[in-house]
């Protein structure tokens, strides 16, 4: 089973070719607001080093968010187009699971600007509750109230060093718990913020 993993929902660009539970090739880089220019080259690079042809691809696993409004659409556009022209299965997961990997009771927080985060609790690879938007204050309260939780993601918002996650473990965990999408046309990103919030 030749699988392509893509995450463009946040600051990083993560692309990997995965076969039978093994990461064959991977690109993982800082790509804030430049995922759109970098993603196809990254996919091409992964396929080349895996020695795969595009037509051999069988499934795409992407993060549906939560995340920045533009980034979150990048991986999804690619997946939707591929599924429209070829019999390629699409699965979705979240960036929170990618970052938490197999960690126990891990609250992942990603900068959502205006002193807010996209956050959610992940336990051994599975979301404990639906991701939501929280204020930094709320996260601080979670931290005080739950001493057994770990915190990961954009910890600089709490004036701590950002966590370094095991991205390979994260990818494999995401694939393990990914959700098969039956209707590719109906798939939409997990924005959490309403479109009208961006009124200019």
């Amino acid at each position, binding site marked *: 089973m030749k699988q392509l993993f893509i995450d463009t929902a946040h600051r990083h660009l993560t692309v990997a070719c995965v076969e039978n539970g093994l990461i064959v090739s991977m690109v993982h880089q800082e790509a804030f607001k430049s995922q759109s220019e970098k993603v196809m080259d990254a996919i091409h690079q992964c396929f080349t080093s895996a020695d795969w042809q595009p037509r051999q691809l069988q499934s795409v696993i992407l993060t549906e968010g939560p995340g920045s*409004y533009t980034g979150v*659409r990048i991986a999804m556009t690619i997946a939707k187009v591929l599924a*429209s022209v070829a019999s390629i299965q699409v699965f979705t997961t979240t960036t929170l699971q990618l970052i938490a990997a197999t960690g126990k009771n891990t609250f992942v927080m990603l900068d959502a600007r205006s002193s807010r985060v996209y956050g959610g609790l992940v336990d051994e690879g599975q979301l404990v509750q639906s991701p939501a938007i929280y204020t930094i204050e709320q996260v601080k309260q979670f931290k005080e109230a739950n001493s057994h939780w770990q915190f990961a993601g954009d910890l600089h918002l709490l004036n701590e060093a950002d966590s370094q996650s095991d991205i390979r473990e994260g990818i494999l965990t995401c694939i393990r718990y990914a959700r098969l999408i039956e209707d590719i046309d109906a798939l939409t990103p997990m924005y959490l913020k309403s479109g009208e919030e961006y009124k200019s």
Partner: protein
Amino acid sequence: MSDKSLICAIETSCDETAIAFIQDGNKVLSNIVSSQIDTHRAFGGVMPEVASRLHIEQISLVLKDSIEKAGVSMEDVDAIAFTQGPGLIGSLHIGVLASKTLAWYYQKPLVPVHHIAGHIYANAFVTNLKFPLLALVVSGGHTELVYMKEDYDFEILGTTQDDAIGEAYDKVARVLELGYPGGPAIDALAKQGTTQYVLPRVKTEKPLDFSFSGLKSAVLQLVLKEERQGRELNKANLAYAFQEAVLDEVLLKTKKALEMVDVRQVVLAGGVSANSRLRERLIHMMDSYPDIALSIPPLWCTTDNAAMIGAAAAIAFKKGIRADFTTSAKAGLDLEV
């Protein structure tokens, strides 16, 4: 190189998700356009983030539909073309990425197209373009006089210093409470109007540039004055006055351009080229230029669509213009290279 080509073209620069298959530059095999107009009508205009969200909801449906209607296999396509800009950045991204994905999967060349080039080449569906030509591009986002010495060579002679013509129509339609989009509503209402109101003439620094914001303010001032003096506003007559003033400006600048460049053809382009009064007045004006051909795009190809991008791309493809995987969408892309 022969003129034979099969182009898959994708256009998502504003509020239409559009994919077309164009053969040999002027045969439309399919031209699917999913319009967001009803959603944006509720907001009274296009909201960028909302537009981007609708594009991603439509892209796979439009793609499948367009391939099926065209009755072609993606394998047979010679190139994947896309609107690189100008436009709303979040919206452009969707089309650019969709194109790159197809180009990667089928290992096809990518051809970037400027949105205005698409509008101009919409005329290729009804005429053989004759160079040198002068294009009058009028739309919701653009008002430009473009000189083309030869195929796919663009020189901007004049542009708007403030609002695009379509924007001016939208703003005035809002003042007159005619809803969104404003162009068709004003065009229709003006037909019932006559000369009653006088609006000031426009002044611009450069002879071929346009300006519409003064006109728009003048309309607002006039409405407020009539209200203050307790007179009932005749909306039809004001729509008439506004439309005539806008078209005076557009046609005057076109005439001035014709004094400055020698051309064999004038082509009209852009969404506002659907305006019935503009068509009427331009045809009338061109009667005084018997040696210059006039081309007016077919109504179906005036508003944004991907067929026009495919028509432009067929020429760009032949000229060897290419994009690669790192090519980015450009909200403010220049037409001149």
